[in-house]
């Protein structure tokens, strides 16, 4: 039952999202703009250890926006479409629907990464490091994606309590991009901010990809942290969804506000 609900929610998300012209365009425009920006900032010649931010970072930024950012707003959109009540009354828990949608978003989020690699390497000629480990990079990107997915489910949970989903989404888009370490090193951040970023699975996923890209090694500690924190986020999200669902049923606020 849960698996079927996950697949169905993911399929609905894919169809809904692909039908939106905004998403169709932005999934390409956003990574291209980021590649051009970082290409200029970092010198555009594959300067030592910074080409990661051009080649992969721009795509990971798009991945973040397409997963956590998009899936977090999905339940808000359900409210707008008027379908949130049937979703809540379904036999599967709310978190399963949300997780299924986030999985759909995760599948689509591969597109910005592909776009950023093609534009930076294929069009702008950014040089790749000699020691790059492609399988390691793929593992890092996947870990980053899983992190986005987990964080998106958690955010979706919190956003469902608010009518101001759009405002909150816009507010969180850039700070989380800042602390994830995808467009510049986390070491550039003030110490306290960098410490906060440690609880984000995306940060460790990005770090896994960074080491595989620059040094050709799979850094198990970063990968382990990414996956462990993502699992923690999912666990908290599932528990929180239960609380939210109970609150809705007790207060009869099926519109969840």
């Amino acid at each position, binding site marked *: 039952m849960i698996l079927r609900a996950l697949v169905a929610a993911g399929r609905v998300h894919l169809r809904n999202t692909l039908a939106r012209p905004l998403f169709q365009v932005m999934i390409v425009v956003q990574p291209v703009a980021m590649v*051009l920006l970082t290409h200029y900032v970092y010198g555009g010649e594959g300067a030592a250890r910074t080409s990661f931010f051009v080649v992969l970072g721009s795509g990971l930024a798009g991945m973040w926006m397409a997963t956590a950012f998009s899936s977090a707003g999905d339940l808000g959109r359900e409210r707008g479409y008027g379908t949130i009540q049937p979703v809540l009354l379904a036999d599967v828990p709310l978190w399963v629907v949300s997780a299924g949608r986030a999985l759909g978003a995760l599948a689509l989020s591969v597109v910005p990464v592909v776009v950023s690699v093609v534009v930076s390497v294929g069009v702008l000629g950014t040089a790749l490091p000699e020691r790059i480990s492609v399988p390691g990079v793929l593992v890092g990107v996947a870990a980053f994606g899983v992190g986005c997915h987990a964080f998106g489910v958690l955010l979706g949970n919190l956003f469902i309590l608010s009518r101001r989903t759009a405002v909150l989404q816009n507010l969180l888009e850039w700070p989380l991009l800042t602390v994830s370490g995808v467009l510049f090193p986390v070491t550039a951040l003030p110490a306290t901010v960098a410490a906060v970023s440690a609880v984000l699975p995306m940060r460790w996923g990005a770090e896994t990809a960074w080491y595989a890209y620059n040094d050709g090694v799979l850094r198990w500690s970063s990968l382990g942290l990414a996956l462990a924190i993502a699992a923690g986020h999912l666990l908290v999200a599932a528990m929180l969804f239960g609380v939210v669902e109970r609150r809705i049923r007790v207060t009869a606020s099926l519109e969840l506000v």
Partner: protein
Amino acid sequence: MSHVARVLRQLGYSYRGLFGWLRPTDYALLIFVEPAIQLLFFGLLGRFGPEGAAFYVVGNAVRLMATGALFGATSVIVNERTQGTLSALLATPTPVALTFYGRALLQGASGVLTGVFLLLLGVVVFDVTAAAPAWTLLALVITALSLSGLGLLLATMSLVGTDANLLLNIVFYALIVTSGANIPLADLPAPLALLSQGVPMTHGLEAVRGALAGDLSGVPGLLVTEALVGAAYALLGLALFRFAETRARRTGKLELV
């Protein structure tokens, strides 16, 4: 009550009723908090760039002012449609194009608030120097007024089409790359550099940079050019709106779709 007073009162009502004023926290988030977060992101990124952080901070302060003015102008006018009051507004004897241009102007003025706040933040956090504050403010005001023309044009295009968010997001990323906020115009590919010369904000931003640096020699000329570019867009926006309005009355499509 004089005609001017009535227009001003109506503009005030529209700003308060359609632009989040009724929720002060949303208003503060839109006008100050979210732009500030973006500014911090670009300031941090700029530390790795060839121009230094101040270049990115000043560029993005003006770009975010522009984004706020353009998004505000469009959202206020599109909100008339979503709230079902557009038809009533079109039926009034007042020229609607002028009413809407007034609203776009007000959003420009509101954008100046954002611009001033962000530049002050830049001075405090990123050590941006402000050698000629009065000229800087004048440059911000003229740039904001100039942007109102483009705001009206975008709003009309949003009314003619159906997806305002798509248009606004494309403009958002186009400004990041082509406005001179993040990449000096001299470093842009020739077609993009040429295109940027015809975009409101490009000359205004250059004037702001000059005023902040205390180099006022080219500032008056740049501001005149900025005002002329803005006026051209205002005329184009008014003409397009009149066309859309006439078409709507003729075809009975008061919602302009």
